[in-house]
């Protein structure tokens, strides 16, 4: 086990920068998630870590060994990394069983031990009955699970997951999340996990790196990211919530209910403004009273356990909240904002 250091990594394709000056230090055995909008460079980072793409500049260190730099390149098969590809990359000519067992075969594991471990891995992903099938005879989700099983049979130092659960339903995802936790605990491997599902990232990762257009925006624990996002973009990106323009206030601090209502009231008449983040659960419908503002229901969407309600303030700003009951569009209500977090304006 060794620390994984990405030191000022740059990557460009045909002159176009895709990853720009990325610095990350991943402790041994840490579970790290990469989050970011589609096309921000997450897969590219994994591919550089795995050694499929050379870095354009900077270096990747694993402990004392330099894995990649503009001069050096340790080839993938010498890295002892595991990976689940976004495109699965199953070998079409091998059965499910052979696909999963191939890494073991390469490691010359004996065949009964191998069978046992394949069996185990297939059980985890609930594909025991499909052992003899070819990948072409599987459904999308089943293929993804084969790819997962393949990455779980060996015990690599570092495992890279590229959206490993994108095609699975929620129950299977929950099950798989459990599996990842168990795998992580058992092997102590360092895990780098790319996902577009924040709740997945939040629940699995020790730390999360949020990327935007190839640059690191924030790097911290899930709680820190959720509660104290750095700027407007991040606040919008992580979790659900609304960014409100209010009267000026110092960035990066909590604002309590009284102050918040005050800031909102003062805003309308001012030019200079700050942005604050209001989470939906911090908004309550209240009877008319001192600390309350008038809102109109703009939209109401059913989400299973509850409804997403989109509200409009009198000055036209939008707010998102939840409600257990459907609400009539265009009806007027009063709400109180319990707290908010003030943001840096985006650079």
């Amino acid at each position, binding site marked *: 086990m060794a620390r994984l250091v990405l030191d000022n990594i740059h990557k460009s394709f045909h002159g176009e920068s895709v990853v720009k000056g990325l610095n990350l230090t991943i402790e041994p055995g840490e579970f790290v998630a990469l989050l970011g909008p589609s096309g921000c460079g997450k897969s590219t980072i994994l591919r550089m870590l795995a050694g499929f793409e050379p870095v354009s500049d900077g270096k990747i260190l694993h402990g004392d060994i330099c894995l990649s730099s503009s001069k050096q390149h340790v*080839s*993938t*098969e010498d890295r002892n990394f595991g*990976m689940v590809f976004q*495109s699965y990359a199953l*070998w*079409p000519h091998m059965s499910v069983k052979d696909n999963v067992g*191939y890494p073991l075969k390469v490691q010359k594991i004996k065949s009964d031990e191998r069978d046992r471990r394949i069996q185990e891995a297939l059980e985890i992903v609930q594909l025991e009955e499909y052992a003899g099938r070819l*990948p*072409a005879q599987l459904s999308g989700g089943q293929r993804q699970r084969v790819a997962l099983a393949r990455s779980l049979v060996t015990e690599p130092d570092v495992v890279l997951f590229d959206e490993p659960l994108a095609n699975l339903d929620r129950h299977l995802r929950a099950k798989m999340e459990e599996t990842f936790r168990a795998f992580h605990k058992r092997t102590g491997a360092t895990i780098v996990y790319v996902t577009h599902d924040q709740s997945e990232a939040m629940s699995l990762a020790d730390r999360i790196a949020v990327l935007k257009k190839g640059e690191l925006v924030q790097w911290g624990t899930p709680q820190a990211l959720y509660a104290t996002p750095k700027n407007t973009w991040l606040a919008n990106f992580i979790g659900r919530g609304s960014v409100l323009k209010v009267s000026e206030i110092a960035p990066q601090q909590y604002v309590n209910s009284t102050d918040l209502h005050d800031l909102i009231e003062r805003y309308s008449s001012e030019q200079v403004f700050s942005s604050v983040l209001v989470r939906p659960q911090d908004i309550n419908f209240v009877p008319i009273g001192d600390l309350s503002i008038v809102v109109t229901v703009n939209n109401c969407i059913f989400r299973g356990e509850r409804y997403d309600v989109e509200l409009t303030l009198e000055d036209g700003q939008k707010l998102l909240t939840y409600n257990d009951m459907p609400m009539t569009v265009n009806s007027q209500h009063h709400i109180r904002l319990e707290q908010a977090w003030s943001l840096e304006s985006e650079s």
Partner: protein
Amino acid sequence: MDSQLRWLSIGLFVLIAALSVVPSLRLLVEALSQVTLSASSPLAEVLRSERTWIALGNSFYTSGLGTLIAVLLGCGFGFVTTLTNIRGRAIWVFCFMLPMMIPPQVTALSWLQLFGPASPILNTLGLAPALGSPQPMYSAEGIALLLGIQSAPLVYLALRTQLIALPQDLLEAAQLAKASPFRVWIDIIVPLCRSAIVAGAALAFVSSLGNFGIPAMLGIPAGYIVLPTLIYQQMAGFGNDMLSQVAGLSMIIALLVLAGMLLQQWLQQRSRYSLLGHTAQSISFRLQRWRLPLELLLASILCFILVAPLFALIVSSLVPALGMPLTLDTLTFSAFYEMISRQGVTKRAFENSVFLAFVSAFVLMVVSLPLGYLLMRLPMRTRAVIASLIEVPYAIPGIVLAIAFILLFAKPLPFIEVSLYGTLGIIFLAYLSCFLSVCLKPVLSAMSQLDPALEEAAQLAGARPLKRLVDIILPLTAPAFFAGGLLVFLISINELTVSALLWSAGNETLGVLIFNLDESGDSVLASAIAVLVVMLVAGLMSLLSLFAPRLPKGVIPWHD
């Protein structure tokens, strides 16, 4: 770089140098050997001669047109037999492989007879042309037509390996866009197969360029020279600088190949797509009411390129002497009897040729796997250069390649003092050198379309290059390998021009045997042997079908 890879590269580059570059270089040296400052050096004479340039132009025309015909035929057959629900797929494919086995001279002659003044069919119908009326086959276009037919299977096999790897969902997406089958074909299938078509076309072009038999048969009467016939003319002269002139002419062919390769590279550069994944189902267009007409069309084409020549061949092997009509009275199996009972040479020739063909095909298949793999990893330009170097020995006429091998191997090998000259070994080496590109072409085009993630996943599993080659790349490109090996086998089993100079007593090949018989006037015996060769090949091919269930899918072209 990985040490396995490094050793692999070094080994293979030595091999390429030995097989392709050294013979070509030796010819170049020969071409330049008598260059003096005076204007009368052989090379200068070759370059100055107007006929050189006429032949060059003619070669270009016939090979180009021949390639076009080969592409049309090969692709047509390829698309119809792989993509549609035509009946009896396996039989069509099987039959389409066989015309390669019939000497083109036989094909030409059978057509001349079929449509000539002596045609038995036309004569009974009263449609036969007057004695001596002009024959359209004796023309550049006639040459091109035969060249095209001869090399169509090259295109067909190269294309087929690509077609069976086409992901089905790409076609489905086009159907959803409401594209008619024709548009799907034009807009999706053809572009996706372009790399294979170009590879097949390149093979066809190069093989047409070096072909001597067809232009000799059809071009000489029409006074139409191409480079290989011009080369033969030089040899037939009595001059002492014949070798340098011949080598000089061959270098012109080599230049033509290089130019062709640049074109090919340019075409393929823009058609390298890795196809994600593979499909299990084979694509099948429902032909509905077009099926019968299409089947009839295929059948009539096969009649022309296979049945008629084969029939002519069989007829001429069953009469006592050339030109006699086949009737119940004249029917005789004496030619077969004589060839089979004269054990010695016939048996030897069969053994030698089958052995050479098998071993060359096998060795080349084994070599093209790592070679193709390494080439794919080279920068585009380097790859283009190496690929064209490999191509040169196939393009220059076999007889010239044989000269190069004599020049290289007539003396015992240095240090070990073993002489390869006069053994089967030298023919074997020459075959390797000559057919390397035939085997490699389909493999390269298949590899270029492989999804790189599949290999990356194996790298993650810790598999080193050799292991990846065997476990991942080989099975995924197996149809291409087999296509390459099959082509080498089919071409070398009755190969003539290379072995013509290199054979020696005891080392006869089938091609040499047939040719020598034919040349010394025993064309009936020659036909008998040719019939036996076709039967042998057809037999071996059917035998292969027995193994099909154990081989990866799509490996045996005539087995679904």
